[in-house]
């Protein structure tokens, strides 16, 4: 099992209690460049530590928000490509439907792959609804644009005989001939994130890696949809676990109390997801109109809220207001002593049928450097080796 360490690189001092919205329209006067500089460099230091500890790295991208200062996943990956030695570098991901220029994505991903000597894991995502607004990409038929960009990027990376032209519905190029070509052949592994069943199936058909983010026990349904797509594309062998990735929170302490204290800090991420001004929550067309209509009938203009369940399907309520205990019961959080975290991960793994990549948010919000470093180190030294053994024997048994 490959394990990746994650932070959103947030600016928590701007998470004002009375701000209706932390995203899109929170003024950047609340961003002190000096504070931001210290934070960016600290978060990069924590990823350097991940590399030293034998963990892999995952980076994301958001825009116009105090919850994530990483406005370009490519920039962070480029820095880490040069500064790390061993870690796989996962970008999850580039919102390729929101970018005007997929050729630029192909070029930059190739550079990162070459500088890192083939450590890039390339994630392409639809993105979150509210970031349609800063990018100004049209929210209708996003996935059409996504797949055209995806196809262009992969063709650019795998064509080696000189320029080709592209006159698509959304993108036009007269001459595509990228330098450099990527390090990994035929191209870096492609990932996408999905909690929607439609896209899980499409990813399975293409054989890309599907990551499901904090979906708890619903992850099983997503992976099963992936498996359908995998099989429908005519592949005789069952879906390998290395096509399946799950993201949760991880907080480790020397004592249960310390682990749970860190869990409280990292859980703060969940509270920010709902703090988005009404018009940005669900731009027209981003979700299928029929689904948006049904959602409106249920909750009005409030927009979707993430509901958790236990392993047995009992409702646990909304993730946003959940206690640490509820997030553990819901399969979003893995927290406590190393032994407890190990047991929780194994339990979750078995409940949803296994996965090959574990993406862990190890830092969020006001969780400071000391807590983050200790939690990551405890995980790497006392949980990760046992998980490796467990995963290896689970695969043998299968």
């Amino acid at each position, binding site marked *: 099992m490959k394990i990746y360490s994650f932070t959103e690189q947030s600016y928590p001092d701007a998470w004002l209690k009375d701000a209706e919205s932390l995203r899109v329209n929170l003024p950047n006067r609340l961003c002190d460049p000096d504070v931001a500089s210290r934070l960016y460099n600290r978060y990069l230091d924590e990823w350097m530590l991940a590399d030293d500890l034998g963990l892999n790295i995952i980076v994301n991208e958001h825009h116009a928000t105090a919850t994530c200062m990483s406005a370009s996943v490519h920039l962070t990956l480029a820095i880490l490509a040069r500064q790390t030695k061993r870690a796989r570098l996962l970008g999850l991901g580039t919102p390729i439907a929101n970018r005007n220029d997929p050729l630029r994505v192909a070029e930059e991903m190739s550079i990162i792959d070459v500088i890192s000597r083939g450590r890039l894991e390339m994630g392409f995502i639809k993105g979150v609804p509210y970031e349609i*607004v800063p990018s100004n990409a049209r929210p209708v038929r996003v996935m059409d644009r996504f797949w055209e960009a995806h196809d262009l990027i992969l063709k650019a990376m795998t064509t080696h005989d000189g320029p080709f032209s592209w006159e698509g519905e959304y993108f036009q190029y007269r001459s595509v001939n990228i330098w450099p070509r990527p390090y990994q052949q035929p191209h870096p592994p492609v990932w996408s994130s999905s909690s929607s069943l439609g896209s899980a199936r499409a990813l399975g058909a293409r054989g890309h890696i599907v990551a499901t983010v904090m979906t708890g026990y619903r992850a099983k349904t997503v992976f099963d949809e992936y498996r359908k797509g995998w099989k429908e594309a005519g592949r005789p062998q069952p879906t390998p676990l290395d096509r399946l990735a799950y993201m949760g929170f991880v907080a480790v302490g020397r004592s249960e109390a310390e682990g749970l204290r860190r869990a409280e800090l990292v859980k703060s991420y969940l509270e920010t997801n709902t703090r988005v001004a009404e*018009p*940005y929550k669900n731009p027209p067309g981003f979700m299928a109109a029929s689904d948006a209509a049904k959602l409106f*009938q249920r909750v009005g203009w409030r927009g979707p809220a993430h509901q958790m369940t236990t392993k047995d399907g009992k409702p646990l309520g909304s993730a946003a207001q959940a206690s640490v205990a509820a997030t553990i019961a819901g399969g979003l959080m893995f927290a406590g002593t190393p032994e407890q975290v190990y047991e929780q991960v194994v339990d979750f793994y078995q409940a949803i049928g296994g996965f090959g990549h574990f993406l862990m948010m190890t830092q969020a919000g006001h969780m400071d450097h000391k807590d983050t470093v200790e939690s990551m180190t405890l995980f790497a030294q006392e949980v990760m080796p046992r998980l490796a053994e467990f995963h290896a024997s689970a695969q043998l048994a299968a």
Partner: protein
Amino acid sequence: MLERTETASQLTEIAGVRLDLIKRGTGRPLLLLHPAIGIKPTDQVISRLAQSFTVIAPAHPGFGRSDLPRGMTTVDDLAYFYLDFMDALDLQDLVVAGISFGAWIAAEIAIKSTGRISHLVLADAVGIKLGDREHRDIVDIFTTKQSEVDQLAYHDPNIAAVDHGAITDDEAQIMFRNRETTALFAWSPYMFDPKLAGRLHRIRVPTLVLWGESDRITLPDYGRAYAGLIAGARFELIEKAGHYPHLERPDLFSQKIADFVSPGGTR
């Protein structure tokens, strides 16, 4: 001839597209082009206009229950479709009346061809850009809270509010379909065609520009400027109405159109 009263819309194929069509009244034809929020058979303005006209009120492709051909993605496409529509029904001496987004379509039709059109009515029209690059003319409905949009769009916002718990499944489906199709056609450039202002001079039929005095989505001065770009166009304010005068003042709205179209009415 007995007046046939339709209380619902019919699905019917015209010019190759299956359309959700309201048709009511007798007399010369009037093509009513609805705003982005759609049109309902129960909208009073239809019956009022039907006293003077054969009202033809389709839901635009992609709105209501009308199909949306895959290749239709711009208001320009809609304008060409409606020219085909007018040909298919062999409409002559036609009054084209549009509100807001429907008025934008009407203008895009009229700059291309007015061969079948006798009069043009544009109410609270969108579709042109007047301000500079840092100033928008039209409130961005896609990033404004709905309750605030209602305040800006209506003289009496109380008639606007939608109770999410009370609307039917069909009403909700249509509402969100209309929102999605509007975003398809009008996301960016936002609610305008960069070329349209420079082409309005091509409209050579009598044109009435109506504007709700309380319209805060598009201000009356925007409307005056719009009218100023169409030779001979008349600009009239409708009091106690916002962006949808056909909904808030259906009687007055209909009367102004009937008067405008009657002999001597364009003087």
